[in-house]
């Protein structure tokens, strides 16, 4: 086992640093003629709106600020830092460096979304083509880039679905949205946000998929849509999708397909062919845009022809000579956020697709699936670990395992191991969204970017965790040992009185506590 220790900087909170009067940045000069013409800034403000006390921001020199945040970055673990094979549902893959260079060019980074179309023909061409390519990859008729993340794309689809039922005059009757329990929680919550009643579908314990009879029972003239996920976060591909689509369409509902997990089926199968009316893909997952420590991401939506008229504005159009933004969509839902979307993610996706080409894209999917099933094989003999659902079936992009047996045997569960794993210099695993229908879950996803050697090393670490749980549980109970910080007190998370979301709140609560004692 290779040795590892995180950087430990014991870095103070920035408010504890610096000295009064220090400067980290000089702002551009205001020319004397301007000052003479306008008078002081204070004289331009109404008395009620003049700030009386300056904000208590830190006072540091430029290089001190740089070093502080450099230290913080060194206590962070990105895909670039080492093995990130455990973070299922997130499709952690390599984000090509050349794409970062291009995103940072002023001809992209310093563009304004409302510039005259003549001055942005290059970026509009990229947007137009990436939409076309995403249409080809998903099998949908039109793609729009506004969605600011996967969940935001899902919500945008729900808004279009709502607009469609309003358009047909059935919205008052169609109040229900059917969602499998194994879908990402953004699906039921997006439906609830849009005012729908959520009907949750349980799944069959053997297949890991909803029962066809249950779908039939749930579908009715009140069904607005079914929000499918395929493949699931368990890695199981639901082969009944065609039947679901038929059942839902027969009662006049729509089918929204969450394609956050598209990585395993790129070039292999398409949401449009599976019968989806709407879908979203995540450019920060399958299409290599970096995850940015939790965004900005991008969740373009794709729709079938019939729903084009509900898309958010604008769409990118091309008349053979010139690209333009069309804000004139007859029954548009308008905006679900400002401007055009996180176009830097679309730019990266464009470059990524271009680099891989058709055969490379197909290779992405195939190797992701090979990697995952290879990992399953390597982990099949880990003591205390099991693979629920769909016995004898292969998994797609990721796998949900269970440490239930290990927990019974040793008292240590998925959360305990997930602290200890960080001691080995790999990212921790994704466990599962709630509820934990798989007891003590763990959901790794070794995407196509992970080498065989790294999968082997990751699996060796999982074996080691199990071994430790049975032979030396104390080392897990007292973990972490090699991280930037020791065991954290998580008790404040449930108690408002102990929560401090800002330094100021922290200081106030601390002094209040001191006074109480």
């Amino acid at each position, binding site marked *: 086992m290779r040795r590892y220790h995180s950087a430990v900087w014991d870095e103070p909170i920035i408010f504890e640093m610096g000295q009064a009067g*220090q400067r980290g940045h000089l702002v551009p000069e*205001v020319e004397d003629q301007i000052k003479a013409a306008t008078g002081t800034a204070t004289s331009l403000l109404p008395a009620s709106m003049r700030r009386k006390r300056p904000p208590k921001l830190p006072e540091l020199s430029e290089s001190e600020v740089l070093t502080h945040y450099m230290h913080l970055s060194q206590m962070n673990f990105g895909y670039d830092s080492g093995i990130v094979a455990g973070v299922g549902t997130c499709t952690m893959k390599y984000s090509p460096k050349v794409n970062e260079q291009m995103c940072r060019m002023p001809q992209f980074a310093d563009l304004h979304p409302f510039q005259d179309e003549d001055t942005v023909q290059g970026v509009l061409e990229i947007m137009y083509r990436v939409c076309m390519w995403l249409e080809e990859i998903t099998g949908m008729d039109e793609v729009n880039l506004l969605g600011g993340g996967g969940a935001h794309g899902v919500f945008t689809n729900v808004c279009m679905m709502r607009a469609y039922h309003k358009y047909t005059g059935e919205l008052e009757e169609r109040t229900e949205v059917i969602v499998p329990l194994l879908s990402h929680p953004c699906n039921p919550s997006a439906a609830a946000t849009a005012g729908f009643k959520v009907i949750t579908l349980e799944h069959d314990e053997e297949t890991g998929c909803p029962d066809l009879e249950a779908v039939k029972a749930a579908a009715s003239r009140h069904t607005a849509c079914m929000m499918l996920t395929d493949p699931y976060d368990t890695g199981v591909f639901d082969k009944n999708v065609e039947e679901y689509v038929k059942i839902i369409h027969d009662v006049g509902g729509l089918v929204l397909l969450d394609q956050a997990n598209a990585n395993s089926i790129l070039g292999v199968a398409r949401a449009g062919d599976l019968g989806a009316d709407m879908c979203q893909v995540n450019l920060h997952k399958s299409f290599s845009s970096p995850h940015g420590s939790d965004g900005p991401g991008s969740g373009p939506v794709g729709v079938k022809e019939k729903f084009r008229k509900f898309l958010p504005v604008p769409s990118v159009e091309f008349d053979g000579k010139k690209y333009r933004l069309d804000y004139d969509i007859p029954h548009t839902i308008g905006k679900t956020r400002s401007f055009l979307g996180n176009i830097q993610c679309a730019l990266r996706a464009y470059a990524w697709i271009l680099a891989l080409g058709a055969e*490379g894209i197909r290779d992405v999917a195939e190797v992701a699936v090979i990697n995952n099933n290879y990992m399953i094989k390597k982990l099949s003999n880990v003591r205390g670990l099991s693979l629920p659902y769909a016995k004898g079936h292969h998994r797609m992009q990721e796998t949900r395992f269970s440490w239930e047996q290990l927990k019974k045997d040793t008292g240590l569960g998925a959360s305990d191991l997930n602290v200890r794993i960080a001691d080995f210099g790999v990212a921790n695993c994704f466990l599962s969204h709630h509820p934990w229908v798989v007891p003590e879950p763990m959901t790794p996803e070794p995407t196509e970017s992970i080498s065989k050697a790294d999968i082997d090393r990751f699996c060796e670490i999982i074996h080691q965790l199990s071994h430790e749980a049975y032979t030396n549980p104390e080392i897990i109970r007292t973990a972490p040992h090699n991280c930037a910080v020791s065991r954290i007190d998580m008790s404040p998370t449930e108690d408002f009185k102990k929560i401090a979301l800002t330094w100021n709140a922290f200081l106030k609560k601390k002094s209040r506590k001191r006074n109480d004692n």
Partner: protein
Amino acid sequence: MVTKHVIHPYIPNSAPEIKQAMLGEIGVQNVDELYADIPKKFLMKRRLNLPRPSSECKVRNHVTSLLSKNKSFQDMPSFLGAGCWPHHVPAVCDEIIGRGEFLTAYTGDTYVDLGRFQAIFEFQSMIGELVGLDAVSWPMYDWATVCGEAARMASRITGRYEILVPKTISPERLSTMNNYCSGIIELKSVDYDRDTGQLDLEDLKSKISTKTAAVYVENPSYLGFIESQGREISDIAHDRGALSIVGVEPLSLGILTPPGEYRADIVIGEGQSLGVHMNYGGGVMGILACRDEERFVAEMPTLLLTITTTKQEGEYGFSWWALPKRLHYESRERGKSFAGTNATLWGISAAVYMALLGPQGIRELGEAIIQKSHYAMKQISGISGIKAPVFDSAHFEEFTVNFDRTGKAVRKVNKALLKLGIQGGKDITKEFPELGRSALYCVTEVHTKDQIDRLCGALKSVVRRR
């Protein structure tokens, strides 16, 4: 034609011999067996209609040649704002968010991603200082979506279902709010004073009722003027048991009174101005802050990052899972929001930016912006037939320019300016028909006196032309 299979640098195991060895270990002949669960009729029988693979060099040449067709505000003075602003981004901001450890991390967890937790805690703390409230959320999608979230939050807190919004609100933000509120919360518009742009307090008083969950105002407003009745508006809201929500451009708060001081309960805004490039509109980040009281914090819709302690005396730790039952991650459809992957990288950039500016820098920056924008208004207003601003109020950064007396449409003025190498302000003729032929101009610290004077010269020649 038989083409040689490309072993792609992004896919380590794509070499045929490695693939075959792994398939062998799995115990299958070929990859098709792994796809056995996908019904045959859905398996693609053809290759995707996409280009052939390209080398890095070719990709870079192609994409940069496309990008070189664009003109950024570095190539041409631009006076566009409307909620996405050209500001100088310090080199240190770009350096830090270019670090792979931040750029390529994701949800992570407490122990592996301590660094970004501390950076975001510092972001939250500094935002709290700017807005004058002690509870601040993890970064969100953008100002528009936070408008929707704040409306829903206010509704949950008060148990009421109407939000009063100013008629001067950004149309894109209003449209987004509608999508967030449709069928649940009714948005009612409050008029403004035609001379000053200020919220019409009489109209507000006539519309507010015990059904009102909150009164929302923007400061500075979408149209650039400073709303100076913040305190009166908050008081009117509170008198009827409603909340006061204020939307801000945070950079203005180096010189403007923090909304917390005029009794705002919830403050929201657009964080792009805090050290993030415009990115063609992709540089946006939503800000949400509220009173540090349980009835507010318990209704916040987002991830909440709290500082905590560790078993080591004097050491700080963090958890971003405060009050987890609020989240859809824990409670599915009973969660307060659906929001997932947000705009955290921009939050890190904003932390660096605020730390660099410090209390002096942020004040001086506010002063530079207000002086330069007022200078521009003054000079533009001196041009025969043009009025700037439309409203008799103090402005910050953005202002309206009216062309009615020139007889020229804003669209035509802008096309003529473009020929002279200048991008004019946003045409708001359709958005605000009552303001006639008007445009929304933006002047920040990056604009020089020369650029403003050049704009004025160009405008003069454009409006004189027949």
